[in-house]
């Protein structure tokens, strides 16, 4: 474990990534601990203040402390990301393996569905779902799962096909290999690596989707603070004070950069090992 961490922080990409991610996770999960105020605490007299010693990031149009709102928003962002990616992965694994092991028509059918989903603008999709089910956190999770599972399924399918068609497996097939052994010893190790890399690159993307939808009013309902809704407030009051906008955007930038840097560094580390394993 220590060796992995050392590998990661060797390069500036990994060092910055790991630092930012740790910061975000710490502050978000400890939101209650670190917030000086209640995120929903309204205080109209103090509205739209600039940052001060009391309000580190200033206040929004209802006088709520932006720093506290940002911390709690982080918790929501991470929650959405972790839950939806986890479920997407499970679905992706099941569908991906089914597509690669099953009949050809099933494979073609699933691929076709995947391409069709991709041709939809995500926004379109999201809007339709939101108007169906109403805006909420659960709706967002549902949307993310719908749009992301095909991507996981595709990677699983590609990796599984690669294993199944490799000469090594052909040889074992001739010797009468059984399914469980095939799965556990050959397919799973080959799938886990790319899947893990994909997931780590996906976290910032999913967080961005959640923020974007909340920005459009499709996500969590007020007064729950999502970074997107803070940005929305900032946008509405952009002429009055830049701080809500800055406060909403800053954590997004830090989180997305942090996770992406970390994901890239992990990929640089895992990929050559994967290639060695495959060869």
């Amino acid at each position: 474990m220590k060796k992995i961490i050392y590998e990661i922080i060797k390069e500036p990409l990994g060092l910055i990534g790991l630092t930012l991610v740790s910061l975000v996770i710490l502050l978000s999960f400890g939101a209650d601990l670190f917030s000086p105020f209640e995120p929903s605490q309204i205080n109209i007299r103090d509205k739209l203040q600039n940052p001060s010693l009391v309000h580190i990031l200033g206040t929004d149009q209802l006088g709520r402390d932006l720093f506290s709102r940002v911390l709690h928003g982080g918790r929501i962002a991470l929650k959405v990301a972790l839950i939806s990616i986890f479920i997407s992965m499970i679905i992706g694994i099941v569908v991906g393996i089914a597509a690669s092991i099953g009949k050809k028509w099933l494979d073609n059918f699933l691929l076709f569905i995947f391409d069709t989903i991709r041709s939809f603008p995500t926004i379109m999709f999201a809007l339709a779902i939101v108007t169906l089910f109403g805006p909420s956190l659960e709706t967002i999770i549902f949307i993310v799962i719908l749009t992301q599972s095909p991507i996981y399924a595709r990677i699983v399918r590609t990796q599984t096909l690669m294993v199944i068609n490799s000469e090594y497996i052909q040889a074992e097939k001739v010797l009468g290999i059984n399914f469980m052994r095939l799965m556990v010893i050959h397919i799973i190790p080959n799938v886990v690596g790319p899947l893990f890399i994909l997931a780590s690159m996906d976290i910032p993307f999913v967080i961005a989707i959640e923020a974007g939808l909340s920005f459009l009013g499709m996500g969590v309902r007020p007064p729950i603070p999502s970074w997107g809704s803070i940005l929305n407030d900032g946008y509405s009051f952009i002429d009055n004070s830049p701080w809500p906008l800055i406060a909403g955007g800053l954590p997004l930038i830090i989180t997305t950069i942090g996770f992406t840097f970390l994901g890239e560094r992990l990929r640089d580390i895992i990929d050559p090992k994967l290639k060695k394993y495959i060869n």
Partner: protein
Amino acid sequence: MLSFIFNKIFIGFLIILASISSLYIMIHMVPGDPIKVLLGPRATIEMQEAISLKLGLNDPLFIQIYNFIKNIFKGDLGNDILTQRPVLTILLEQTPHTIALVTVSIGWAILLGIPIGCYNAIYQNSKSDKISGLFTVSFIAIPPFVVGLYCLLIFAVSLKWLPAIGVGESGNLISKISHLILPSIAVGLGWVGYLARLVRSSMLEVFKDNHVRTARAYGISESKIILYYVLRIAILPTITLLGTGIGILFSSSVFAEIIFSRPGIGKLIYESVINRNYPVVMGAVLVSSTLFVITTTLADIINALLDPRIKNNHNS
């Protein structure tokens, strides 16, 4: 070669059909009555039924889809529920703005991204490579709408260097261009990052190839090697990426159009779904699916033209 193209076009058609049909089905699961929206709460039952008949909302789903597709070929996409203007007209008005935005955004990506990627591949692991690597990954990481909002805040609201809203006066090219700059940066910045990374990694792969070694063994100059041997092959994944990324571009353009109050397909979709403006939604989805299919097919065809190996794999 021709069979390859026809194959692609046919599948493209199927995809468009599939997306329209599934959309139709989805929309009809949405609660909320368009008729009430159109006519208001004091509509009588007779009026509702008349409109219902006119819009064909009583027929079974298959027939509706079939009629819709039949009408498309006639050029009739129905009318906007709220204003009764023909959907086709609305689309023809709005689409060019989005196309302009997307084109300029990709333009940024190509003009900046490819040279940066190229430079970084040649000077791999130098200080400039590492630093610009951090930047390009950041460009990819930051959500486009955040880029847009910050551009708006810094360059339009605070510094007042560039306009914040709209497309500019018609007929005035300078005005139009200045109104395109910030939104296209918002949409295009991520792509600058994508292309730079992709070009860099493809070139590094090709550098290792044996035929590059051969070229070096003949003393061919580095610049010729990069142009004729490396870039020629490394550019292929870039084209594929651009082609398939149109979907992502669309989502970003929605945000850019909303944030900068630009007219366009993205904003149209957003508003019409919220207003349950079915005909407009269908028309807009038709446009976006078609654009997606056209660009991916074009990308695949250009790819095959440039890399004869793909054509041959298909034939054999």
